[in-house]
């Protein structure tokens, strides 16, 4: 050893008694066993309550099961699908599901980008703004829908009152002659209302998702661009948006799942009416399957959702991978 003798010996003396060790080796040390044990409960749960019901849904859709007689043994082939497609409501439901989802997405994407830009910086009162902006997401969807139902009431809507007050509504005005617009009682106003409610309640979540990506963009990138003399919109389109693209896609995917697959808003506001003009697939599946008692037909309708969701997801993911590479 090249060190001075005395020093080394003193060091060695301090080192004589290593702390005793509890080295009982067991399964807690085996990554594969620990990993399998940690994963198993979730996998078992998902197989039992997602995968099996999913196949049960397929089986149901091929059977003649009803609420009164829920046995799935009676095989009827594609009968349920055929009768569903032939139903006058089907085209309305499919059309509206797609229109509402697409319109929600377009509006939501634009508003999300704007709101993220606002919340990306610090300003006095930010906490209050965060509380106010997250409010639509904090309300249970069903209750929020009831709130909107009242807001869009056919007689007492405050929006109508404002329109009347400024002279846009009522006898002899642009939107007249009636005193009310009957938002939920007209085909396109109803669809528009559902879109606005969807955007309203989905905006906080998509903002949170995209904001997570926005805060991850290094500040130097913006400073460099500003030094290079890029204006606000050039920075937005050439730096911010490309960097956010992947998280925007994630946010959009989430929204599609929530909007396309959920019936709550329609169930509590327009109820698919007037007629079937604002019907959507999930609510129709509920009406047929549970209210109407035709479990098998309800399952068949709901199954129409799956290929659409699958296609959208694959498309979105592929776009995202292309960006990542």
């Amino acid at each position: 050893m090249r060190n001075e003798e005395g020093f080394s010996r003193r060091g060695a003396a301090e080192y004589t008694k290593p702390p005793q060790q509890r080295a009982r080796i067991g399964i807690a040390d085996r990554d594969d066993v620990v990993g399998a044990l940690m994963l198993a409960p979730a996998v078992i749960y998902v197989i039992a309550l997602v995968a099996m019901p999913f196949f049960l849904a397929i089986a149901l859709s091929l059977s003649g099961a009803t609420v009164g007689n829920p046995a799935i043994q009676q095989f009827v082939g594609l009968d349920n699908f055929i009768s569903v497609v032939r139903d006058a409501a089907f085209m309305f439901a499919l059309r509206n599901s797609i229109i509402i989802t697409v319109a929600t997405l377009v509006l939501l994407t634009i508003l999300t980008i704007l709101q993220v830009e606002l919340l990306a910086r610090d300003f006095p009162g930010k906490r209050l703004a965060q509380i106010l902006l997250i409010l639509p997401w904090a309300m249970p969807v069903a209750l929020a829908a009831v709130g909107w139902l009242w807001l869009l009431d056919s007689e007492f809507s405050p929006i109508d009152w404002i329109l009347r007050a400024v002279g846009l509504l009522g006898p002899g005005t642009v939107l007249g002659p009636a005193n009310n617009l009957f938002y939920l009682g007209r085909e396109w106003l109803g669809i528009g209302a559902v879109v606005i409610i969807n955007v309203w309640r989905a905006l906080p979540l998509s903002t949170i998702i995209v904001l997570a990506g926005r805060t991850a963009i290094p500040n130097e990138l913006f400073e460099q661009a500003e030094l290079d003399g890029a204006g606000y919109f050039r920075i937005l389109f050439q730096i911010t948006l490309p960097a956010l693209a992947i998280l925007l896609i994630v946010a959009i995917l989430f929204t599609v799942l929530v909007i396309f697959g959920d019936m709550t808003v329609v169930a509590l506001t327009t109820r698919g009416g007037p007629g079937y003009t604002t019907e959507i697939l999930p609510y129709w599946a509920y009406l047929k399957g549970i209210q109407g008692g035709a479990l098998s037909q309800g399952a068949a309708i709901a199954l129409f959702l799956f290929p659409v969701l699958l296609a959208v997801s694959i498309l979105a993911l592929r776009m995202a991978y292309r960006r990542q590479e």
Partner: protein
Amino acid sequence: MRTGQTLRMIGFYAALLLFCGFAIFPAAWMLITAFKRNADLYDPANNPFLFNAPPTLSHIGFLFTETNYPVFLWNSLFIGVIVVAITLVLAVPAAYSLARLMGHWGEHSSIAIFLVYLIPPTLLFIPLYEVVTLLGLANTVWSLILVYPTITVPFCTWLLLSFFRSIPREIEEAALTDGWSRVGVFFRVALPLAVPGITTCIVFAFALSLSDYIYAAVFVSATTSRTVSAGVPTELIRGDIYYWQALMAATAIVGLPLAVVYGLLFDWLVKGFQVELPRSPRA
């Protein structure tokens, strides 16, 4: 320069105000309605934003004494807390296992988790209705406790998978060489470092279980087992009669406190969303 900056500030706050207004307009309307007397409310000539007659607490009193609202609140809270617990027990270990212990395919399994999340309640509620009936859980809160994790577990596993992957591997390896077993590392290093992700999961699991309408409406028809989401609309909308003030009060009483809690956790939620996209399987 000076005026340019001032203009930008004005533009910024104007935009912020617009967004906040859009977010809270329905809520503000609810809040005003909740305290209005019938005579005031049902007069189309009245300014709906003002109290043309003195405000009243009678509708809130009605809500708590003559409806099952307190039962709904309790059911929702009870279900929410248990669902959050079940979700964490299932999702946190599963996510850690996939992120660290199951090798290559585990890390890239988030696409499979995403596919599970892709199956919406609308597709499952009919078969799950049969399952719930079969198990004799129909009309009880336990039917909802059983099925809500189908929404929350895939979502939280996916979120936490990304979060665990964002923790530097070396920190856990240091703990392994420092003398801890894999289980010790999970509890003493990985879990504490995943607190932002877990917080986000708690909020999401609670919010998702509170918000569900379809399962709550289909599985439970007994009034005393209903949640806020399904109970309030059925109890306070009786045929053509809408108890508007009570409905709005019921909504505001749930929504406003939660908005404050979630709003204060806003930055945490953002931090918890350390998501990456589901990894491409060939990567």
